């Protein structure tokens, strides 16, 4: 059992940050790694990337968007409540070293995962340019933290309510044009279409690009093959071979399709859960 020490709602309650007591995971966690958790006895195993870890306090921080029953259930837990199971840290850590200039691009809750990686690159002595985006100003998360972890930060909103009016890819292209070969690597984490288009832009400039893939998983140890992704025509397991891969080689169409495999069941579970919640509220 893993106790929740803090709960913060972000982006108008659509995103939640939890600090959780998990000393063994905290002792080992590195940027880019994830955990698999199960909220309760009947829950499913869901992978969530870690936004932070504090080995001294023995805690990890997860930041997740409420998208279905499992995340809604997780959000229903309050401070001092327990999460049934958490396993980790899983996946390969991000290879962080001094390279020169790095561009870190994040969208939606992807920013939460991007933050420790960005901070890592900065601490390693790189010049780090951050680009973060959201649909609208109120959905933007972790702007302050990203600003502190970068040398320059650019903010975009799809509707123009804050920062640059447009997509992160616009600013990415601008920066790549301006900085040219100075940019040694790009890291882009967010929704599948965002990563796909960012990788397209960086490919034009020949800049190596790392993406972090959020495939559906069960065990997280390479045992089931549920999270398989095509990278350069080869099948890889996101849980053990990733979650980070060469963005220029990933088959994003296939990943996007595979993420929809349980849409019908996810909706059924969510409808049932919301119905139960509203019944309980009426009593």
């Amino acid at each position: 059992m893993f106790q929740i020490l803090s709960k913060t709602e972000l982006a108008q309650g659509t995103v939640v940050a939890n600090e959780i007591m998990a000393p063994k995971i905290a002792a080992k966690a590195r940027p880019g790694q994830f955990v698999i958790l199960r909220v309760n006895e009947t829950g499913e195993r869901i992978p969530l990337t870690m936004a932070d870890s504090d080995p001294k306090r023995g805690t990890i921080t997860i930041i997740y968007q409420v998208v279905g029953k499992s995340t809604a259930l997780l959000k229903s837990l309050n401070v001092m409540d327990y999460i049934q199971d958490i396993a980790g840290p899983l996946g390969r850590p991000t290879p962080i070293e001094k390279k020169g200039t790095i561009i870190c691009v994040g969208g939606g809750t992807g920013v939460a995962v991007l933050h420790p990686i960005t901070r890592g690159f900065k601490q390693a002595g790189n010049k780090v340019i951050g680009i973060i985006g959201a649909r609208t100003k109120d959905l933007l998360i972790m702007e302050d933290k990203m600003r502190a972890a970068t040398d320059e930060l650019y903010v975009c909103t799809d509707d123009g309510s804050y920062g640059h009016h447009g997509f992160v890819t616009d600013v990415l292209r601008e920066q790549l044009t301006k900085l040219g070969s100075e940019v040694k690597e790009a890291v882009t984490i967010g929704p599948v279409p965002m990563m796909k288009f960012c990788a397209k832009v960086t490919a034009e400039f020949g800049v190596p690009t790392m993406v972090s893939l959020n495939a559906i998983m069960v065990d997280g140890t390479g045992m089931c093959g549920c999270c398989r992704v095509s990278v350069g025509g080869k099948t890889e397991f996101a849980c053990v071979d990733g979650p980070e891969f060469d963005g220029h080689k990933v088959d994003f169409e296939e990943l996007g399709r595979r993420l929809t495999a349980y849409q019908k069941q996810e909706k059924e579970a969510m409808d049932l859960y919301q119905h139960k919640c509203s019944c309980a509220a009426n009593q």
Partner: protein
Amino acid sequence: MAEDKVKKEKVGRHQMPEQAPEVRRRNFKEVPLGYTAEMALAEASRCLQCKKPACVEGCPVGVPIPEFINRIAEGDFVGAILKLWEKNSLPAVCGRVCPQENQCEGNCIVGKKDKPVAIGNLERFAADWARGRSEVPMPPVKPKTGKKVAVVGSGPGSLTVAGDLIRKGHEVTIYEAFHKPGGVLVYGIPEFRLPKEIVAAEVNFLERLGVKVECNAVVGRTVTVDELLDKEGFDAVYIGVGAGLPRFLGIPGENLMGVYSANEYLTRSNLMKAYLFPEYDTPLVKGQHVCVFGGGNVAMDALRTAMRMGCDDVKCVYRRSHEEMPCRAEELHHAEQEGIQFFYLHNPLRFIGDERGWLKAVELQEMELGEPDESGRRRPVAKAGSTKTIDCDMAIIAVGSGANPLVTATTPGLAVNKWGYIDADEAGKTKKPKVWAGGDIVTGAATVILAAGAGRKAADSIHQHLSWGW
């Protein structure tokens, strides 16, 4: 004596009652229902109590078979379970899933003229009878030695090691990556063959003996083998992580939605209880036309699970013929009874998807048998010009498992062979000091009882090392 023998032959083997095929094919309840005490007494009386019991020689863990059966025959069921526990910590599991026909029962002298004594059924009876009964004493545990052993993985081999060493007085901690202990017994073998509450009871038995079980501990990630030895102060480590790497076919279309590895399909339905969705949150797609590729026990489990998930058209596609099927005869028989169709001598060429990326058909190549290959079985070869495409919206690949590198890749000094299996001697000793290994991660995918047998040998070797430093 001669008269006695004649009488015994007349009795005949007592069949264990089971759910009728047309009923059980749609539920997840256990298929065989177990012996009553009367049946067990009658079956036990068929045993000849051989002085040199061939059955015991056939048992990988050396269960004292005539002795425990004799106690059942005398109505001493407590005595029977204590006899079983002397050599086997998992009798309720082994009584159900061991291939007895090739082991103890295959060697049974009664079986030369009549059907062999139902040793597996009797083992199961004794274990089921004892479960939850307060009058059954715990087996004796030796005084504490002060030595600590870490067991990585919690499948049948690991549980055997834990059971053996705790009784010899060593401290034992099991590290399991999943949220529940039992390994393949909980994620792989379906509820209708091995109810999960029985696995939980066997693990609980070990816990009552003093074994500690730590779940959500992914060795290689949460903690490494070296850390267990150097930081956590363990005197020995046993690696029994199984062969947890699914093999795929490597044909086009394998990443379409609707294509599962058997590991994934069975883990979702068994460990995560997807068959109880939406009461349990883990979903599983329900196919209309299901094909399972492979002919082993795992394939049979996947086929029979798909049938129970509500699919009417479930096919086993196997590239060799009926004779070469590697599964247990009993499993095949059960599957046939439940209405599974068998496509022998067919090999998949490619999976065909619809515009949304879902599997809709599979193209098969007809095969014929040629000369025997290195396994001694006749090699299937493609029949020229004969392919066919059949409807298929769910495919389950059950063609074996490889070695999962998570532990081996993070344990320097541990030698592996070219397939990634750990290099260990007969006693399970690896090339790395203080580290033993056994089961599928050494031999490649095999059976529950062979893993338990490897665990027994390793436990003996670890005990010798801890006692005398060998």
